[in-house]
């Protein structure tokens, strides 16, 4: 009886280990895509993407005047971090890059990001720098003047996730649930 127990146990353990691999909710980039470094400005001073190597980076593009999709996205990400355990959340850095340098200075976008979570970092750059970063990360950005005055900024609403080596590894389209984001982050945290 004992002789058949250990082989059976081994089979069960192997079966558990070989169970279905995790399927991310977002779009997994396999192999990861290059993510060029950038240096932008936060309220505290210059911040480079490479500063966060070793952490999972959640990179979002938005602007402070946006009342709808941008705060909705930021709230989803903040909720995802609330779902994670504190030691998991500590391994994730959220960056919000302003696509509206005309209106958002570093202080404003930093303050805006921090309202969602005090660890979120809002970043600003000159229009040419922002155009370059947006293009590097496949983010469309266009300022549109409004008939009544003022302007809005059309932009890609997807969120890009970088692995610990700073490469693009996952894309969440707008509308990804916070629970799904948390599961995907947990997967990336454990994987590396």
């Amino acid at each position: 009886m004992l002789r058949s127990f250990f082989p059976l146990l081994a089979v069960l353990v192997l079966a558990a280990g070989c169970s279905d691999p995790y399927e991310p909710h977002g779009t997994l980039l396999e192999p990861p895509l290059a993510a060029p470094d950038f240096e932008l400005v936060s309220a505290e001073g210059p911040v480079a993407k490479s500063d966060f190597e070793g952490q999972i980076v959640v990179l979002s593009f938005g602007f402070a005047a946006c009342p709808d999709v941008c705060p909705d996205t930021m709230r989803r990400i903040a909720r995802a971090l609330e779902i994670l355990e504190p030691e998991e959340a500590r391994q994730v850095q959220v960056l919000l890059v302003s696509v509206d340098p005309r209106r958002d200075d570093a202080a404003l976008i930093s303050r805006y990001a921090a309202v969602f979570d005090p660890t979120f970092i809002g970043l600003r750059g000159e229009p040419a720098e922002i155009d370059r970063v947006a293009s590097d990360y496949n983010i469309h950005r266009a300022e549109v003047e409004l008939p009544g005055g003022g302007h809005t900024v059309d932009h890609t609403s997807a969120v890009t996730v970088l692995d610990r080596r700073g490469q693009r590894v996952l894309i969440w389209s707008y509308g990804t649930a916070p629970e799904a984001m948390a599961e995907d982050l947990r997967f990336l945290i454990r994987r590396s």
Partner: protein
Amino acid sequence: MRFAPLLLLALLAAACAPNDAPNATADPSAPRTDGVAEVHVEDAWVRPVRGTPTAPTNSAAYFTLRNRGDARAHLVAASVEGVEITEIHETTMDDGVMRMRPAERVEVPPGEEVAFQPAGLHVMLLGVRQELAEGDTLGLTLRFEDGTTHTAQALVRSPF
């Protein structure tokens, strides 16, 4: 034969009965059929934000408009208590690109509902110079093309 005039009188009386309670005998929740829009504002909520007098910020109000009447209603303006400027906007997603544009006039067809929700129609609150904290309530006033207004209490809450 004297029955006929009585019958005619009865029919006339029925036809001339006041029409202000069309659902008197019918289900009170059934749509109207008297050529009038009847708009209800449901589930109004506002995104929490932290504005200050020197650093105003923007927010958004969302709700569902339900038209129980049998005429179209057109929303043309909205205001929120304590907020300087409010505008009706619509977000559309075009191949993953978010675009937000002003919406001058939003139609609510008879018997239908129109949802103002994230990534769609919303009322943009501009220049909020105070904190709108979860649990606060704000008066929301909606003005329609026919001159009618509807008010609702909007709850400040997070969608998640």
